[in-house]
Structures are given as structure tokens and as C-alpha cells.
């Protein structure tokens, strides 16, 4: 059977169930790379120039680990998913850049998604991708419909049952869910609700963010993420803060951040990669919003290849401390 490799990086977290369904309906076996390890990152970063952002280095590492495990590698080029939104250059150049830096890779199958170019172009692109495995347009269409359904139920699962992509993917692929984390590190502190926002590939890659979410749970915090919101909630926050969304993933950053700054949580942690173009601007919008509101704490953690684990932990602890102090003060004021 033909196999196609999907690197467990970048857009994997948002679309894996969709892509998997699509390819499996066309009779292709899907393999993914192992979760990121130190090795993945180290290998990836030898292939690209040093200024490349961390997530792309990680991505290249995952591609390298798939090189002799599949017949094709799937790398989409997503330009825009909504009219007049645009993506970071790195996503647009991803297939071509990967070909350049991993010349030994099996053939790379790509698809360009750009809704600005109309429905017809979209259908053609999907057929263009499916045709590699089944030239019958009807079969490709069936596969695409099934994929779309899988995507909708994946998003639904996350927003309704409040699951993170990792949990939802486990659910879908039939892996038993991990036990909820017992607060273990500082059980005496009162619990806080913390929203962690940013690109999915930074939030859920536990190697690059030093298990940030897990760690927050160990501290007894309840953690909320962008996927747990409905599309409507995120869009409303974008509209309030910047008007019209400009970036393809603006809703995960400005949308989710903006929403949580006003609702439900004691603090918002933004995670971004060093040198990230879109986030350097979007996190600034959030920082200013938090400054204007003065109610919800906000902190932005910047990750790069050499970010130290202790640095991240220290900042995390300081942030939680501050929230606890604020809460205590508020309780004291009430009595």
C-alpha cells in the first residue's frame, strides 16, 4: 500500500484528523512522525539558516525523520482560509523550502489553499492532490467531504468537550485518554484559571514549550486554550480589537487572547516563537489591551531553540504567584 507521511509539526495540530481521513478514503496509509524530541529539533536546525523560527526548524526535523518511512510527504501551502486573510510567508514557502533543504526527501505532495481565488480553484487544488492516488473525481470528492466532516467533528469535540488538540486526536484515533493531572507541585495555593494562547504548534508541542500546559495543571491551574472557544467567540474578539482579521491564524492569537482577557480567566499566557512575524504584532495588540484593561494578567513567553527550561519555569511561577496575590487581595477586599 502507498504510504504518505504527515510531519507532526506546524499545521498537524489543527488538521491531522482531516488529512488522515482524506488520504485513507483514497486508500493511502498515513504515517506520522514521533512527537518532537531534542533530536528532531537538533537535526532540523542543521538544515536551515539560523534565523529560521523554531517551529520551522522543528518541522524540518520531523520531515527528516519521515524520509525513509513513506512514499510521499504531504506539505500543504495554506495562504488563506477566509477571504482577505493572509498567512506567514513560511507557510506559503513550506513545500518549496522543504524540497530545498531536505533534498533526500521522498516526493513532496502539496496543495495550495487560497480561498481568495474562489471555490473553483479550491476544488481544483483538492482534486489535484487526490489525483495522485485516485483519478476518479467522484472518489476524490467523497474523500474531501468525509475529510471536511472529520474536521468539523474534531473542532466540535474540542470546543464542546473542552479538549486540547492532543486529547481530541487521541480520542479520535482511539488512544485512551491520559489521566487528568493531579496538582502535585504546590497544592496549597488556591487554584487559578489560566488561558494559554498562540499557534497550536507552540501550545501543544510539549518538547518546545517544556510541557507548559502540563506544568500549569500540576500547579493546580485549570488551563483553557484557543480551541475551546467557538469560532464566534474568537471572531467577536478579533472584531473588537483590530476590526478585520488580517492573518490566517489571527483568531488563535488576537481572537482567543482578546476573548479570555475579558472572560473566565485569571491570567492569559501568550506563547510565541522568537522572530515570529505575525505574532510580534499580534502579541503587542494583546499586551496593549491587557494594559488598558488592567483586570486580567498577561504575559508573553518567547521560545527559541536555546530558551532555557528554568527561565520558562521561573517566569511561570512568578506569574502564578502574582495571580494568587491578586486573588487574595481581592478576597481580602470583599470581606
Amino acid at each position: 500500500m502507498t504510504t504518505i507521511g504527515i510531519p507532526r509539526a506546524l499545521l498537524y495540530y489543527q488538521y491531522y484528523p482531516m488529512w488522515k481521513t482524506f488520504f485513507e478514503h483514497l486508500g493511502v496509509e498515513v504515517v506520522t512522525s514521533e512527537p518532537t524530541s531534542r533530536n528532531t529539533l537538533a537535526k532540523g536546525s542543521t538544515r536551515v539558516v539560523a534565523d529560521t523560527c523554531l517551529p520551522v526548524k522543528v518541522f524540518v526535523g520531523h520531515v527528516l525523520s519521515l524520509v525513509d518511512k513513506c512514499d510521499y510527504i504531504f506539505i500543504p501551502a495554506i495562504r488563506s482560509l477566509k477571504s482577505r486573510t493572509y498567512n506567514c510567508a513560511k507557510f506559503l514557502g513550506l513545500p518549496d523550502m522543504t524540497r530545498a533543504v531536505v533534498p533526500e526527501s521522498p516526493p513532496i505532495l502539496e496543495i495550495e489553499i487560497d480561498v481568495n481565488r474562489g471555490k473553483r480553484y479550491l476544488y481544483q487544488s483538492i482534486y489535484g492532490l487526490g489525483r495522485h492516488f485516485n483519478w476518479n473525481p467522484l472518489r476524490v470528492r467523497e474523500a474531501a467531504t468525509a475529510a471536511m466532516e472529520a474536521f468539523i467533528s474534531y473542532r466540535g469535540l474540542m470546543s464542546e468537550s473542552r479538549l486540547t488538540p492532543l486529547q481530541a486526536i487521541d480520542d479520535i484515533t482511539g488512544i485512551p485518554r491520559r489521566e487528568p493531572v493531579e496538582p502535585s507541585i504546590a497544592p496549597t495555593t488556591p487554584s487559578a484559571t489560566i488561558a494559554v494562547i498562540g499557534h497550536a504548534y507552540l501550545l501543544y508541542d510539549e518538547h518546545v514549550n517544556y510541557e507548559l500546559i502540563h506544568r500549569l495543571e500540576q500547579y493546580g491551574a485549570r488551563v483553557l486554550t484557543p480551541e475551546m472557544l467557538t469560532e464566534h467567540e474568537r471572531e467577536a474578539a478579533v472584531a473588537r480589537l483590530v476590526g478585520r482579521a488580517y492573518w490566517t491564524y489571527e483568531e488563535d492569537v488576537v481572537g482567543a487572547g482578546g476573548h479570555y482577557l475579558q472572560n473566565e480567566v485569571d491570567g492569559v499566557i501568550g506563547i510565541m516563537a522568537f522572530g515570529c512575524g505575525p505574532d510580534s504584532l499580534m502579541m503587542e495588540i494583546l499586551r496593549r489591551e491587557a494594559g488598558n484593561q488592567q483586570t486580567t494578567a498577561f504575559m508573553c513567553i518567547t521560545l527559541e531553540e536555546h530558551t532555557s527550561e528554568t527561565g520558562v519555569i521561573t517566569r511561570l511561577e512568578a506569574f502564578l504567584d502574582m495571580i494568587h496575590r491578586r486573588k487574595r487581595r481581592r478576597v481580602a477586599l470583599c470581606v
Partner: protein
Amino acid sequence: MRVSTPHMGHVYIPFKAIFKRLGVEFIMPPINTQRTLSLGARYSPEGLCIPFKMTLGNLIEAADMGANTLLIPGGDGICRLGYYGKVQEQVLHNLGYDTEVIQIGVSEQKFRSLMSIIRKVSGDAPWYRIISAIRFGLSKLASVDRVERVVQKVRPVELVKGTANQLYSHAISAIDKADDYDTLKRVEVDYINQLERVPRDKQVQPLIVGITGEFYVLLEPFSSFDIEQELGRMGVEVRRSTFVSEWTKFSFFLNPFGINEKKRIHRAARPYLKRDIGGDGWESVGEKVLHAEEYDGIVHLAPFTCMPEIIAQNIMLSTREKIPVLTVLCDEQIAKAGVLTRLEAFVDLLIRKRRAHSGRAQGAAA
């Protein structure tokens, strides 16, 4: 209304001309210096690219001088630039400037949006006056570009170093002052003639280096360490296909010659990069491929953290064309001295390469 706009090379010249003709007060921020950059960098969020910092510096200085309407480039699908306005406006407001920020959509409505913005700023002047003012402004820009092309040729071969630069700066201020088409034409012809007459060293065959990379740093010499001048001083002839007259980069019709050139560049890039990735990454790859035979080397200018140019750099490193490429990062953290050292080493490399090459060619002929 007191209007201002950030600098990018000589873009202020047409703006000045347009607003003068329309009777609008135009405030020109001080030309770019270290002060502009430090000012902009101080108030910029972390991790931003140099065009953001420089233009923010200009805007703050303009607001300080009393400008109350700031025109800044914006628009769809042009990388971070399209989002600059949203953040720069907030920064200015937080600093306490009560300015109106108008984003010029340089990509989507092309020329129309520029015209209607100028109309709005001019207090609804009649269309014919706006069109004639814009035409005049653009003619000035075209003159600047034509003079610049000659300067690029003269710099490396002039006998007395610095002559061309001096004439160039005189020409710029004369063009800036010209108030009608006749004067403009005369000034241009006059300076081009003078440049052509500059005594040259006829013996040397200067090295040819293509300059490619991100739009802003290509066109704003201060942001890119005056690299063209420096190369000229080292006796290198510089070729660049991006000129200020494409400053509304997507309004190609202003520069019909530009369309074909860009098409050629894109076609050349295609085997390695299929699509526009925002910014100018596609062009950078294309120029390397297209000019590999023609040029001795390429200097690739990239703002630090510039996403399209990082992709371009990754791809350029592995294309089959073997022309040497020097990537120069532009940022306020990077010292000019270090850049110049690398540049000199690069030029040495090109000289050695050319010698080896011509040596081989002679050997083959004999």
C-alpha cells in the same frame, strides 16, 4: 491639515510635489539618521523588522513637528507591512499624539485608493487637479530613478572618488525644487550629461553585483548601511531591478517596463519557489537564478526576522546556480563596521573568482 508620510528613499519627493500643487501643507520628517532608528526601535515591540522601526521613527518625528495626518502604507497580503498601521497607530496614540492615521492600500485597490486618499487629504480638490499633481509627482520620481541608474554606472569607474555621489545629491535637490515639467526635464538632462562626462578609468571592467532582497531596505539606503555607495567605492557596479518608482509595488502599471521584468524574475524562480510568499522572497530567489550568468555576485539584503527573506535564503542556498550570494541582515543591532568587513571579503572573493575564470578562458583560447 498637516500631512506627513514616512521616508523610503526618495519617495518624499513626489509627495512633496503633489501636496504643493494641491496647496496642502506637507511636513517632511528629518531624513533618516541613527536618531530616527533609535527612536523607532525604542517604541517598537520586540522582534519587529527594520522597516517598521524606521517608519515608526519617522512618524514620531513628523508628529513632533506638528503633522496631524499621517499616511502610512498598508493593505492586503503584503506580509507584516499590511498590519503595521494597526500597531503604529496605537503606539502613536499611547505616546499622546492626536494624529489621524490613514493607511494607503498599496496592494488592493492599486492607484484608485491612492487617488481618493489624496483627494480626501486635499479637501476634495477637483479630480483633474489631483491627477495632474500625481502625474507631476511621478515624473519627478521617474527622473530620480533615471539619474540613479547613471550614478550606479559611474561610481565604480570614476577617477575621483565621490564625484558621482556629489552630483547625485545636487541632482536630487534640483529635482526636488523643480516646479514645472520644463525645469524638471532640463535638470535631469543636465545632470545626466554631467555624470556622463565624469572622468572615468577606461581600463577597468568593474565587477557586477546584483542587489536583491526586501523592498524597503533596498530602497532606503540608511537602513541597509548605504551598501550601494560602499560597493561603488570598492569599484563594483551595482545592478538593481527594484526602483522607487515601483513604490506602490503592486501598481505595476506605473512602470510598464517593470511588469515584464518582474514576470521574468518570477518565471526564473518557479523551479525553486512556485508562488508569491508575501514580501519579496519570490523576487530574491528569481533574481539569483535569472542573473547567475550575468553578474559576478549577489548581495541579498534582508531585514532581521524577515519571514519571506528567510525562506528565500534557505532556498537560495541550494539552487543549482552557483553564483556567490552574500546575505546582509539589516537591523539596528547590527554594526556597519562588521558589515563592511564582510562586504570587502566578498568583493575580494569575486575578484579572485573572476581572475581564475578569465585565466581559464585564456587557457582554453590558446
